[in-house]
């Protein structure tokens, strides 16, 4: 076997799959969903569009997670937080777009009317601007990740310690967001979205557009991640994962490397969250629960760490299985899911990708 880190990504087969995926997302799905009549057996219903859209959002997160875990060796148990922050940032805009169509028929979001708030709290400043919120989607998770990462990496917090404090971070944020006083709707979160850029959200066209944008983002993320990981930067990252001390003695300031990929990963998660919210129609602090973040790590592990395409498959498999099992055997699905996790770790230490690679 030749080649080190850089030469193992995407053989011709990988590129073919990617091309096929593009065709599916931008060609086949829209046609089957919008052009084929609903009673045709070939029609793809809105359920499938939103379900696949949701899974693609998860896949973006999984790829972002793979960047930090698979390549830089930083296991974050708090990535759900960045995802949720992106979702909340964009959710603010969606809430403003409801306009006066809420339960109270008043221009402010229902929960604010109810809390007797006469003015928007500071967090909501300019939230009726799409571009402002779109910027927040990137800035808020990015900034938090940057500040947190700066201190953590500078203090050389690593391994399980880092994992645990990321978990503490997301747990603390969850409790904070559960409070009504925080100004984000408490436990109910944001829901009941009506419009996006003044276009009604619950139409097949909007839904398909969101789906396509999500698909494009996923592909973009994959390409970006591939570019990163095949550059010398990526090789440094992998080197940090394997022997951080040596990298430092080679003259690299590892803090900045980790910080860069960490922040980037958080930003990608934020974008995924922003795409996720209009498609599933709700964002609530539950997204920040530690269990959700652990699950992200599980998608990556199931798919195969450090393979980029593997986490994507992992996210698809686990969530597909979840969607299927919860209706096929609602009483016993946890057994199946738990068993999958155990079997994968025991028998497929490199995840599904490792298995596919071996078969080749």
């Amino acid at each position: 076997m030749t080649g080190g880190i850089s030469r193992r990504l995407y053989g011709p087969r990988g590129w073919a799959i990617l091309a096929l995926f593009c065709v599916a997302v931008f060609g086949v799905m829209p046609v089957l969903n919008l052009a084929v009549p609903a009673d045709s057996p070939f029609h793809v219903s809105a359920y499938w569009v939103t379900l696949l859209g949701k899974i693609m959002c998860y896949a973006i997160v999984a790829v972002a997670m793979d960047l930090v875990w698979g390549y830089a060796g930083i296991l974050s148990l708090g990535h759900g937080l960045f995802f949720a922050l992106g979702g909340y940032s964009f959710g603010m805009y969606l809430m403003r777009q409801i306009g006066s169509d809420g339960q109270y028929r008043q221009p402010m979001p229902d929960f604010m009317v109810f809390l007797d708030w006469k003015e928007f709290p500071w967090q909501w400043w300019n939230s009726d601007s799409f571009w402002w919120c779109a910027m927040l989607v990137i800035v808020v998770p990015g900034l938090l990740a940057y500040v947190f990462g700066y201190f953590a990496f500078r203090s050389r917090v690593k391994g399980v310690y880092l994992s645990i404090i990321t978990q503490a971070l997301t747990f603390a944020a969850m409790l904070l967001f559960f409070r009504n006083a925080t100004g984000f709707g408490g436990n109910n979160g944001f829901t009941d979205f009506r419009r996006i850029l003044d276009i009604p959200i619950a139409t097949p066209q909007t839904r398909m557009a969101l789906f396509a944008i999500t698909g494009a983002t996923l592909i973009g993320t994959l390409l970006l991640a591939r570019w990163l990981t095949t550059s010398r930067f990526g090789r440094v990252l992998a080197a940090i994962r394997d022997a951080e001390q040596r990298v430092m003695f080679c003259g690299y300031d590892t803090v900045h490397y980790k910080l860069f990929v960490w922040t980037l990963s958080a930003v990608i998660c934020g974008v995924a969250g922003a795409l996720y919210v209009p498609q599933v129609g709700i964002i609530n602090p539950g997204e920040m629960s530690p269990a959700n973040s652990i699950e992200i790590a599980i998608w990556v592990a199931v798919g195969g760490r450090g393979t980029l395409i593997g986490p994507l498959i992992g996210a698809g498999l686990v969530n597909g299985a979840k969607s299927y099992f919860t209706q096929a055997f609602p009483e016993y699905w946890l057994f199946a899911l738990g068993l999958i996790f155990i079997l994968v770790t025991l028998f497929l230490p490199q995840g599904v990708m490792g298995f596919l690679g071996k078969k080749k």
Partner: protein
Amino acid sequence: MSISATTATGEGGSLGRVAREGLDSTHGVVLYMEDISVSFDGFKALNKLSLSIDIGELRCVIGPNGAGKTTMMDVITGKTRPDEGTVYFGQTIDLTRLSEAQISTAGIGRKFQKPTIFEHHSVFENLELSMKADKRVRKTLFSSLSSAQKDSIAETLKTIRLNDSADRVAGLLSHGQKQWLEIGMLLMQEPRLLLLDEPVAGMSDDETERTGELFLSLAGKHSLVVVEHDMAFVEKIARKITVLHEGGVLAEGSMSEVQNDPKVIEVYLGR
């Protein structure tokens, strides 16, 4: 106790300058350590250690287990901060204030006791990563290898005799080859000072031989500090030897001086 002359360090304004500028070695000394003490939970790993290395010198450091050899290297490379004492690289660079990466960039390379290379990277990539270059994030994102850099890697590959294995994954190399690769990585950094912790451990006689030759050829251009247990090897390459014991310098001098030093004999042959 120690004979090393380190009195020249305290020269006024040079103190405390965090330097990225070139190495000022006007006094012909590349490294000064003075009165370094380090303790771990009450255990004194280094006890007022003073040592200086001249430009182009090849110094061997020996000493029984626990004498503080590795800790000394940790202090020089910034991995461990001394409780007290000063470490200067040249005349101006205060190493106790720099991070590992900064120290490395300033021109100090280190080889670990246990070969640490990037096991999942190819040999070529290992050398590429350690090559002297701008190592800031932005640059590594967009950099590609110039032909001069490629030549330099090829040359090093030849020096460490791994030119047939350039594309092999480093983790698959033999132990001796890994040692060589690590030395190659040091060379790619083009350091002024090389710290080598047991470089020939696990090498065949033949490999050891060649390593010795390599070191001797490096001395002059670079300064080398070699920590080694293999006395035959030390004897072959050493010009000046420092013996550490219980965190301090026990003796210093040529091989024969050291061998005849009663204190050294007592420590090594013991009561």
